[in-house]
């Protein structure tokens, strides 16, 4: 038995296809992005080594920092929205009839492509004929804003479809976690005279703390990677007001053909994501050994 299942050839045969793809198409490119960041390169011609020039440019580039700021703002919004999702899940999981179908309806936007969602919401936000402004004008608001053309509100306007898209996903996760709580625990608390609020805050929420922490990491790291929706809805505009790290990197590389600088930004995106992941993990891990989810 042991001999058969520890045969080196067999192990290599089974792990190699996946491992090679992982290394060649993910890990090596990640390392190379740091290396290409040291080059001046238009994507087609020869590379020229210029040292850390691109990284210094990034540090002094206000457009880069504003894209970092926007990414972090979206991460903050996403983390805060988890509280709303959690609230909805608490209601949904408290023996509501039809909770199964409701939760499945909530999930629908999550299954659609970000491109389709972006195109749909461009129409929703259309200043004159869109769903939103038609509604606002119908209830008597005369000059509703052109949501995606207004630098001061565009980032919030973009966050609404994100909120809409991910709602079902997080509700699903919290709902599953809440349903995992043994009924006997909740019942015992009720018999001891605990109110529904006390049951929710003293019993249910502490029991799903582990899951909540995982979702915080997911939401924050996920937000730092946002691209499709923003690229399609605004292309980072107007005037950079909705530019995020990934969209800025894409623009520098594939629109301005500055692949060296684009690689440098891509590498900084990786470093920032890893640092944030590390910090959020550290902050959300407590002393006691948590349930491993």
């Amino acid at each position, binding site marked *: 038995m042991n001999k*058969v*299942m520890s045969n080196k050839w067999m192990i290599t045969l089974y792990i190699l296809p996946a491992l090679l793809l992982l290394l060649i198409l993910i890990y090596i*490119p990640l390392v190379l992005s740091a290396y290409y960041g040291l080059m001046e390169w238009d994507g087609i011609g020869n590379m020229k080594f210029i040292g850390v020039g691109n990284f210094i440019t990034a540090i002094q580039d206000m457009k880069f920092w504003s894209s970092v700021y926007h990414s972090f703002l979206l991460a903050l919004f996403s983390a805060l929205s988890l509280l709303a999702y959690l609230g909805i899940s608490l209601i949904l999981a408290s023996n509501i009839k039809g909770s199964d179908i409701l939760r499945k309806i909530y999930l629908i936007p999550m299954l659609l*492509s970000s*491109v389709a969602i972006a195109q749909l919401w461009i129409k*929703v936000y259309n200043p004159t004929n869109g*769903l939103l402004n038609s509604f606002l004008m119908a209830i008597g608001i005369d000059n509703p804003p052109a949501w995606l053309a207004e630098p001061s509100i565009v980032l919030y306007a973009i966050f609404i479809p994100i909120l809409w898209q991910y709602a079902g996903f997080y509700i699903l*996760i919290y709902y599953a976690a809440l349903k995992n709580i043994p009924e006997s625990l909740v019942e015992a608390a009720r018999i001891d005279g605990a109110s529904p609020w006390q049951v929710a805050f003293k019993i249910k929420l502490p029991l799903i703390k582990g899951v909540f922490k995982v979702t915080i990491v997911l939401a924050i790291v996920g937000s730092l990677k946002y691209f499709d929706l923003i690229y*399609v809805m605004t292309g980072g505009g107007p005037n950079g007001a909705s530019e995020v790290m990934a969209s800025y990197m894409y623009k520098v590389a594939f629109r301005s053909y500055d692949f060296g600088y684009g690689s440098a930004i891509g590498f900084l995106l990786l470093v920032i994501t890893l640092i944030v992941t590390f910090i959020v993990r550290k902050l959300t891990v407590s002393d006691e050994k948590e349930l491993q989810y």
Partner: protein
Amino acid sequence: MRRLGYVVLYVILIIIAIVQIFPLIWLFLFSLKDNQQIFAKSPFSLPDHPHWENYLKAWQGNIGTYFFNSIWISAVAIVLTVLFASMATFAITRMKWKLSKLVLGLFMVGLMIPLHSALIPLFKLYLSVNLIDNPTSVFLSYTAFHLPVTMMILLGFYYTLPKEIEEAAIMDGCSVNLLFVRIILPMTTSVLATTVIINMIYNWNEFVFVNTFISSDKYKTLTVGIQNFVGQYQTDWGPIGATLMISIVPIIILYIFFSNKIVEGMSSSAIKG
């Protein structure tokens, strides 16, 4: 009092449900209208008669080609992803070797990595082996980037498979390959179905790789094709709506038939256990 509270909560839940699907219903409505109705009448009005010609127009505008490409590129990537992920999960959870924990860690860290950081080097790699504007670059990328999440879904299931079965099989002289193909894979069909469906959704919706690696119309998939189409028809809302509907409907149909699998896959792709 209790009853009233219950009703209020119910109303909140139902309003959220309406918010979640209303934009899609609105999309369906305007995909059946002509511009005159869209611009002159209330957005909440029903179409005077369904303008199915919008769908015809969309289909003629290359959407057929994009649709077909989405299907076959997704399918190839799904086969590769699910096969390689199953093999790797099998090697990691059932075979005995020193580095298995480390290799598993490499795959799991892959869940966190922003693909944009790898995009330019990937572009250069494909350029140097002549795979730019070739669908191979797209399905290889889909496979590599979806291996981690597929393995995450498979892992929980593999850990619960009883050891006795493979012990008995090996005792009877069964080879590793036979054990994997004849015994392990059939035992995992239910979780395999979940990974297939989840990958189907991911691949169908993917945008960046196609947008970056593919330039010929004949290889583009729906997500990128929609972008082209919208660019051409700018103010013609009906056909744009029809195009979006064509890209959404297959996923909705999938959801109607496999909602339990999708719900299961979505939650286990995020959280172990």
